[in-house]
């Protein structure tokens, strides 16, 4: 270990240099900043602890080690303590004592500024001798107290004593920052002490900043069981690395291990190792040790199978299984059960059937399944056990173990078969990845619909092509800006691959179709519930009528079988649709867009967040309903409109529209606060006014209003009792754009008046 200071600081616990630490930079900065911010602010009300919720194999140790090194090097009043619960300890007491030892070791190393001490193996008495003068008294007292506790009869008390040792540091000089890693290992089966809970309680009860990291399911469970205010803890979620970070990690690890790779094998490893920093590092280390070049699929898969059958991957999975099922016989039965549950499409197994097959009592099976659940090797809801979604590497391991241990097949045959499977799968894995990368981000786009208004022609290829074929992007954009034939998109609340609804869509790939559940007009009523069935149609040229008919039949059939009542089919073909195909789409009320239309739509749909420029020139006014207060609003908007140089006539129209909107808000919403909220937004060429109120969402208000009016009648057809309700008609006539924004309660009407030469 090199503790020499370099441009990135000293490498103390970190396994890689700071500049080689890839993929978690933002998280590292957040932890450091949290530690420094929390220092001396224990009573400020700010969360002093961070929970790191880890996806299995997402890797957290190096992040915490890097945090340790950075804080150690910064030499501030914060003493970093990193403790990973060791695999070798078997009881809560021994683990707690190990924590006490590590704490004192790292504390003294920091105080003496001697990083090498962190790696030393010293007894508590040795540590007392090394304690700096400023800390000698409390460390001596701590060790003496420990020696008294150690020979007491209360193990739980001893565990608590060890875990709370950081609280005994006198707060006048420095404060410890404890980072607790690998909490999922804390469930010692032979102990009556709930160690994970004791860890949570000790960290939370102290005033020092801390990090508690571990598998997400376990950490959340421990925090819940420990009780107390879990909302006072900040949360950081760590998942597998994204493709880009995983590529960078492989490149860096290969360089460090002097392993030759190429772009193809690098991409294969990213996909095959599922972005796991642990697997990636393990594979590259193995390649480095064996001096192997990973420059072909064959070389990669050969090493993969070696590692899976007897290397680091094997050791990792074996240790997980041994942790879950320490008894060999039970372990073999678990492997068999997991293998039998593996085939795709198989229904989840019943907990009771596992209990019978394992021939164990319910409590033991429950604990075993719980450990598998924590590792996310199964999903258990208490009654059923489902293994779908578990890692391909894990399934490869299970299969090979089953064949070797249960079926007693010759090892050579199993190795050959696993390798043949891996080699056959490699091109498919990469093809799947490329297809996914090239696929349209259908779900992301649908998620952005959010009741927004967009030009209707974006959903009709022939209309769009007639207006914009051969036109520059700027002209298309300007044309669409001016387009008044708009369609209001629904608010999508759930999306899933079409495959999840029907296996008939599976041959086209998971990414090719999406089922989006939504509410039109953003109003949550039965009649507004709608399901969009969206599919990407593969066609090099304009999709023809036969292809479109096939897709329409397929999607409409899926809708029928699934009992979907109100649906909207939307097909997307790269080059659009032939005129006949477009006619067919229209005749069946389906939408059809080209890739260009899709891309334009993607650009136009904001995420719903107001842009910076949207709020820069904004006026807000809140006033009580009634007492002719709408005149105040009219006066205010008049002043704003004058600044924009609207004509007197236009100003009068705006004022009238505002008055009507205020009256509507007052009359329709049964507002609890009896207030009207107004927002005047000024842009170069327009004035947008939003009038909103809290309260109920009137059933007949703002529902499917596109192209409709609240009242389309005039004086001739009205009786005296039904003459009210002209407000919205007036607003729509007086203003250029009127739309109801989606709100959870009350109403929000946005209206826009454009500044024209004569307005």
């Amino acid at each position: 270990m090199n503790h020499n200071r370099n441009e990135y600081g000293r490498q103390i616990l970190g396994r890689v240099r700071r500049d080689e630490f890839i993929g978690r930079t933002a998280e590292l900065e957040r932890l450091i900043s949290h530690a420094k911010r929390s220092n001396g602010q224990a009573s400020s009300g700010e969360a002093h602890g961070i929970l790191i919720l880890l996806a299995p194999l997402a890797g957290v140790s190096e992040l915490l080690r890097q945090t340790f090194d950075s804080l150690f090097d910064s030499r501030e009043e914060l003493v970093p303590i990193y403790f990973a619960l060791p695999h070798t300890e078997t009881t809560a007491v021994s683990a707690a004592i190990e924590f006490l030892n590590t704490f004192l070791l790292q504390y003294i190393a920091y105080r003496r500024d001697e990083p090498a001490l962190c790696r030393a193996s010293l007894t508590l008495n040795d540590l007392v001798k090394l304690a700096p003068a400023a800390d000698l008294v409390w460390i001596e007292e701590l060790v003496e107290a420990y020696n008294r506790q150690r020979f007491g009869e209360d193990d739980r008390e001893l565990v608590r004593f060890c875990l709370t040792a950081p609280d005994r540091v006198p707060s006048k000089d420095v404060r410890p920052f404890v980072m607790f890693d690998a909490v999922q290992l804390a469930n010692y089966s032979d102990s009556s002490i709930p160690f994970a809970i004791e860890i949570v309680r000790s960290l939370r009860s102290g005033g020092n900043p801390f990090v508690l990291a571990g598998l997400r399911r376990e950490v959340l469970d421990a925090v819940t069981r420990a009780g107390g205010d879990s909302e006072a803890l900040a949360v950081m979620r760590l998942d597998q690395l994204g493709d880009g970070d995983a590529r960078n990690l492989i490149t860096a690890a290969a360089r460090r291990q002097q392993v030759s790779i190429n772009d193809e094998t690098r991409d294969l490893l990213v996909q095959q190792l599922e972005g796991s920093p642990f697997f990636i590092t393990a594979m590259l280390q193995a390649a480095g040790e064996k001096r192997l070049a990973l420059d072909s699929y064959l070389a990669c898969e050969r090493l993969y199978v070696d590692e899976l059958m007897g290397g680091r991957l094997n050791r990792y999975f074996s240790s997980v299984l041994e942790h879950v099922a320490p008894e060999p016989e039970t372990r073999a039965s678990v492997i068999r059960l997991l293998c039998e549950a593996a085939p795709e499409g198989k229904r989840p197994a019943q907990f009771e059937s596992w209990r019978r097959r394992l021939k164990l009592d319910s409590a033991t099976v429950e604990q075993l399944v719980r450990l598998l659940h924590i590792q996310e090797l199964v999903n258990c809801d208490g009654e059923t056990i489902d293994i779908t979604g578990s890692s391909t590497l894990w399934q490869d391991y299970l299969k090979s173990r089953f064949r070797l241990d249960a079926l007693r097949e010759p090892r050579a045959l199993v190795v050959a078969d696993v390798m043949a499977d891996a080699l056959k799968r490699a091109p498919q894995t990469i093809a799947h990845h490329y297809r996914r990368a090239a696929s349209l981000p259908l779900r992301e786009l649908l998620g952005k619909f959010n009741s927004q208004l967009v030009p209707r022609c974006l959903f009709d290829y022939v209309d769009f092509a007639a207006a914009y074929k051969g036109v520059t992007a700027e002209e298309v954009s300007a044309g669409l800006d001016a387009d008044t034939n708009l369609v209001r998109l629904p608010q999508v609340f759930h999306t899933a691959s079409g495959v999840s609804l029907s296996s008939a869509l599976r041959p086209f790939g998971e990414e090719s179709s999406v089922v989006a559940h939504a509410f039109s007009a953003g109003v949550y009523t039965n009649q507004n519930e709608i399901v969009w069935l969206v599919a990407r149609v593969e066609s090099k040229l304009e999709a023809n009528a036969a292809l479109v008919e096939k897709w329409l039949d397929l999607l409409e059939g899926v809708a029928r079988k699934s009992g979907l009542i109100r649906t909207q089919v939307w097909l997307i073909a790269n080059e659009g649709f032939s005129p006949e195909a477009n006619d067919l789409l229209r005749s069946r009320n389906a939408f059809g867009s080209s890739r260009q239309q899709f891309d334009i739509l993607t650009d136009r749909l904001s995420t719903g967040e107001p842009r910076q420029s949207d709020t820069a020139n904004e006026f807000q006014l809140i006033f009580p309903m009634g007492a002719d207060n709408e005149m105040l609003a009219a006066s205010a908007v008049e002043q704003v409109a004058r600044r924009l140089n609207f004509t007197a006539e236009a100003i009068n129209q705006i004022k009238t529209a505002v008055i009507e909107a205020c009256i509507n808000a007052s009359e329709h919403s049964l507002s609890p606060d009896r207030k009207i909220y107004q927002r005047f937004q000024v842009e170069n060429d327009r004035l947008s006014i939003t009038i909103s109120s809290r309260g109920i969402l009137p059933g007949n208000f703002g529902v499917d209003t596109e192209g409709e009016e609240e009242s389309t009648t005039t004086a001739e057809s009205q009786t005296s009792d039904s003459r009210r309700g002209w407000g919205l008609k007036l607003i729509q006539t007086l203003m250029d754009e009127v739309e109801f924004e989606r709100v959870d309660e009350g109403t929000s009407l946005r209206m826009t008046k454009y500044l024209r030469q004569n307005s």
Partner: protein
Amino acid sequence: MGESINSNVRSHCVGTTAVVYASDYLNKLTGERIERECKKQLESGARALVIDFSDTELVNSIGISILLGIIDIAEKGGALVVFSDVNSETVQLFDMLGLTRHVVLAANEQEALANLSPSPPQSQAIGH
């Protein structure tokens, strides 16, 4: 020509024509005041109504619906209704909601009165 102010509504009579003045903002409250005044004038024998909008800057839809009610009442009683001195923006609103098909618009009060009576009228206060 006599003039009366009832509940903040100015009015006066010229022969059998009642002239009622709308306020600067015609809304529910001011509309109902005008309605009450007009009814009163009709019950007192007025055969025609001139509603003068020279002070009116803004009209809302509730005010317009009340005006329609007044037109209904007048029509049922065989009385004529003329709106005078309506600004162009308000005319636009009346057009939108079909009011202008039921009333005569006059540029000002004099023109309204002239439309209602070919010979020069003799002004006198009635009612109140």
